[in-house]
């Protein structure tokens, strides 16, 4: 069954960070529609700084831990704790592993999602990053037995579909939750960054598998 080596995963996380930094303006712009317009700034600052401290050779858990440290230590905002817990709880699953296969990957995502829900008390359907994340977890869990390639295809699609589905949702959490009907019609910023992170990670894993 396909898998990738834990060591040397730092480069993948740096790719994720680069994707976030590249999408800074876009993420801020959609946050401006029903939020405070800073999602891209917060994310780019955190991931940009983390990337500077991650080496290509780092293990996945070490790289994730660096992201967590920066988010929780220096960034703050909503994303500090939420993505901080996401990466921290994912790191716990893969810590000490030689190689990471699809079931481990699925378990890792699931732990990350649990972490976000534990601290943020939101649920899928609330129009938040969980609407990209939770479908991706389910897709990973359902496809893990078929191996990594199928899993990654399913995760990408689930994350993007989940992100797109937030357009029609009414926000139940965060700043936008006070808007009721007025929050409908706009894509959620956190779901957008989450899908971006998952898709970029899946692409990077795919490249390492082949």
């Amino acid at each position: 069954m396909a898998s990738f080596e834990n060591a040397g995963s730092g480069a993948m996380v740096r790719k994720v960070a680069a994707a976030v930094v590249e999408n800074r303006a876009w993420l801020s712009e959609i946050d401006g529609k029903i939020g405070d317009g800073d999602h891209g700034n917060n994310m780019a600052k955190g991931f940009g700084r983390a990337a500077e401290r991650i080496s290509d050779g780092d293990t996945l858990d070490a790289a994730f831990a660096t992201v967590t440290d920066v988010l929780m230590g220096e960034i703050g905002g909503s994303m500090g704790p939420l993505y901080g817990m996401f990466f921290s709880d994912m790191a716990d699953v893969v810590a000490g592993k030689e190689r990471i296969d699809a079931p481990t990957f699925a378990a890792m995502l699931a732990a990350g999602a649990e972490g976000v829900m534990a601290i943020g008390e939101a649920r899928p359907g609330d129009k938040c990053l969980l609407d990209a994340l939770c479908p991706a977890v389910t897709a990973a869990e359902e496809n893990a037995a078929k191996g990594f390639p199928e899993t990654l295809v399913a995760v990408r699609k689930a994350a993007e579909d989940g992100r797109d589905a937030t357009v029609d949702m009414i926000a139940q959490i965060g700043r936008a939750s006070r808007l009721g009907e007025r929050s409908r019609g706009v894509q959620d910023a956190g779901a957008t960054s989450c899908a971006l992170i998952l898709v970029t990670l899946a692409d990077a894993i795919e490249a390492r598998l082949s």
Partner: protein
Amino acid sequence: MTDDIRTKKLINAPEDIIPEAIEGMLLAHPDMLKVEGATKRAIVAKDGPRDGKVGVVVGGGSGHEPAFAGYVGRGLADAAAVGNVFASPSPEHIMDAARAVDGGAGIMFLYGNYTGDVLNFDMAAEECQGMGIPACSFGVTDDVASAPKGREGERRGIAGDFFVFKIAGAAAEAGRDLDGVIAATKKANDNTRSMGVALSACSLPQTGKPNFDIGHDEIEIGMGLHGEPGMRRGKLATADEVTTELMAGILGDMELGSGDEVAVLVNGLGATGPLELYLLHRRAAKILAEKGVKIHYSWVGEYCTSLEMAGASITLLKLDDDLKTLLDMPCKTPALTVAG
């Protein structure tokens, strides 16, 4: 071309704005403020924290100046944790503040009720408790526009921070223990209601773009402190009409009758100055007078802003004898001096 148009600001590199502003603030108020801790995000009162006194730590994202660090000083907050623009400080920033003000009597954390602030301050409070320091994490919920009656706990904190911070700071200064400070804070928050209106957008230093669109003849009633949409988009109306609507939102949500006393805060969001704010105060005072409500004291000015947004908010704090005593207690901070 027009895509190149950025809001003009007097800044250096956008990523340096917070550390540089903190440096400038410390250079401006060396008699009152110092910075403590490795993160350099904890601004601490020189003449505030002391053994046996509850430490009062306020904080939140930047862009709301003079909130939050402007309220640090004797008789008000002992420290402020300063976040990036519109983003809560991190647990480490907050812990730097908490460690600096710990006098063995516990820590009171105060901030506006936003997801990010709640998450980060709650984590700091847990960390304190883990170290054996009693701590309370408290989000101010004064904005009536942000959730209906019955769901008060979901409301945002806006300019009402001013009153809740002042009461908490005075309670700690008066030597009350943590439970006493919590009780006074809770009562102040329960008795505080605000509502705001925005006329223009603000823009973040990093993006330089207005963070929402608003027509040249439109206003946003119930706008949040970060440009979050409010209750309704309407046509520009007179100061009297707008004030009447804001006061209706506030008075519809609190019990106030003849003989009651309030403190009033008419707060500018950034680009709306005293000339306009006094027009709002005029109408608000008349509405209160018609109800037989007495104004104990009024503040009119910029106390909690949204960068350079045009607009204003009105806040009422319903007073009882204890709240009045605490409100009148002296304090000395960069943004508020109450003389003894």
